[in-house]
């Protein structure tokens, strides 16, 4: 079984315990995808390759993946990739996966918390001409030909079956990330990371980066962050009471 996991470095919203680089971290949905791939490897003989497209410093999420038990890591990096939208990103990943050319299962995070599109996985599957299932919270069973998954719905979940190869986008399920072992950490430090650029991938420059992107960000409104924000004032005990009241009111607790 050959598994490819596509991962992405993001600006850290939650402090990643394992990361020395506190500013950046692994996309949490990718963390779930990584854990699902490792669970498959626990069950049957599998080789896991992680790929990321990003700046050279994204290497650390690849080493982090190796420390968890991934076998091989590839960094797609080139100045020409800068400004890629989801389509250009998917195309770059597609070219890399075509080069690897040997896979049964591809896993992606459901989305990234900074882009929030959830497009890359499905786009990649279409380019590869393989089926895909989004919002998978658990791989229930897998063998060399078929996978059965739990797919998260608004209410409850559904069980889907697919032939391999298939691309799954993973969301939170029973896939809380495992701890890194000492041997894993040592291995990751010494592991060699493959670095592939546009030339190596034999890509047309008009299919990646901002040139290859159909969508462009015309304006960013960072003030959105302020929405729904409420500031409580007073002493600690009165603030605590107000917060609890608010949480109760919104049925959060």
């Amino acid at each position, binding site marked *: 079984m050959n598994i490819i996991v596509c991962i992405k470095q993001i600006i850290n919203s939650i402090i990643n*315990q*394992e990361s020395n680089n506190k500013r950046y971290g692994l996309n949490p949905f990718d963390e779930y995808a990584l854990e699902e791939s490792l669970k498959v490897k626990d069950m049957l003989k599998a080789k896991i390759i992680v790929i990321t497209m990003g700046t050279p410093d994204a290497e650390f999420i690849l080493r982090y993946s190796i420390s968890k038990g991934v076998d091989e890591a590839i960094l797609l990096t080139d100045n020409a990739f800068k400004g890629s939208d989801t389509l250009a990103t998917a195309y770059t990943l597609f070219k890399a996966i075509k080069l690897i050319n040997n896979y049964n299962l591809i896993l992606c995070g459901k989305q990234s918390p900074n882009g929030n599109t959830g497009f890359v996985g499905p786009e990649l599957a279409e380019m590869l001409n393989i089926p895909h299932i989004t919002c998978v919270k658990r791989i229930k069973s897998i063998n060399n030909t078929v996978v059965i998954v739990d797919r998260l719905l608004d209410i409850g979940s559904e069980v889907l079956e697919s032939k391999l190869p298939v691309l799954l986008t993973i969301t939170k399920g029973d896939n809380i990330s495992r701890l890194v072992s000492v041997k894993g950490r*040592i291995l990751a430090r010494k592991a060699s990371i493959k670095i592939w650029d546009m030339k190596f991938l034999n890509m047309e420059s008009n299919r990646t980066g901002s040139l290859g992107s159909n969508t462009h960000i015309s304006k960013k409104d960072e003030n959105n962050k302020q929405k729904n924000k409420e500031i409580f004032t007073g002493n600690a005990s009165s603030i605590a009471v107000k917060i609890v009241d608010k949480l109760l009111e919104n049925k959060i607790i």
Partner: protein
Amino acid sequence: MVMNYMLSEDEKAIIDIAHSVAIQKIKPLRKYYDEKEEFPYEIMKEFAKCDLCGTYIPKQYGGLGSGIMGLVLLIEELCKVDGSIALSIAATALGTLPIILFGNDKQKTKYLPDIASGKKLAAFGLTEAEAGSDVCNIKTVATKTGDFYIIDGIKCFITNGGDAQIYTVFAKTNFTKGARGISCFIIEKGQQGFHFGKKEKKMGIKSSSTRELIFNKCKVHKDQRLGKEGYGLLIAQTTLNNSRPGVAAQALGIATGAFEEAIKYARIRKQFGNSIISFQAIQHMLADMATEIEAARSLLYTCARTIDSKIQKRISKESAMVKLFCSEMAVRVTLNSMQILGGNGYLRDYPIEKMFRDARITTLYEGTSQIQKNEIAANLIREFSTK
């Protein structure tokens, strides 16, 4: 905060991984295990998964080959959060060191890989009711009959007793030869004639099990003997010289954990309109604690490195100094941390009272502080008699 001790990348990896296990797996459960006095099997599994069981075991037997330094760094980091759960690894190291130091290749191949992988725990069986520091007074006897020894006697205060699978046990093979009449044996749990006695109820280190080992006509093959017959005392002393830094690391870890709780508390606790950390009385206490902790750490790391380098033939003085200083320091620091937390430090809602209870044992086991002083003095007398 900690000084740069020029640790290797592998050593830093041990600390990092130990830290994440301590924070994510031990911290949420430390109170539970302390109050229930349960052996933390679930956490042992995490240690095994993260390769933390064999840091000191040579690489060819499945360990990390980081020596006593690797053990010390691991125990210190885990004990910052809980001084009791980490003890199961420290006590395993104590039970394993005789095999590492004196085992033949067959014995090492048979036992070390399972300990390194965390599949099995070990324990050290020396102490008896009438033979604590006075080791030569042990009454457990090993009578040779053909290829076997028949072992009879009772060991007490054995850490990991009942929960470990592998025991290094000391018994008299000759009552007339005194110090040269003791031998060491590897005995496995489940062996006929080997039972466990009562579990002790302790002040601290409650998640660690302390039991009696009872040998009643326990038949052990001579291949299970470590080293030559009559070399038991040498094995015990050499083991303890190597293992005392482990106890010191436990003490240092607990002290560091307590200090961190105290300084955190001092920053947020307000009295007379100010954080209590702004009061010089508190500042001086914290300064003393931090200085003592760092001094202890420097001595401990230097000693561990010296042991691993094998430069120095005799290490008993330094090993005793480390254990003496770190353990006494830990008692002072945990007490002063409690003082800084005031009444809150006395409550079981805060971790300090547990840290104090756990720290207290370190001045007692593997030789009391007074025995360490005897050891240091004996070495001083020997050194200066030749000058």
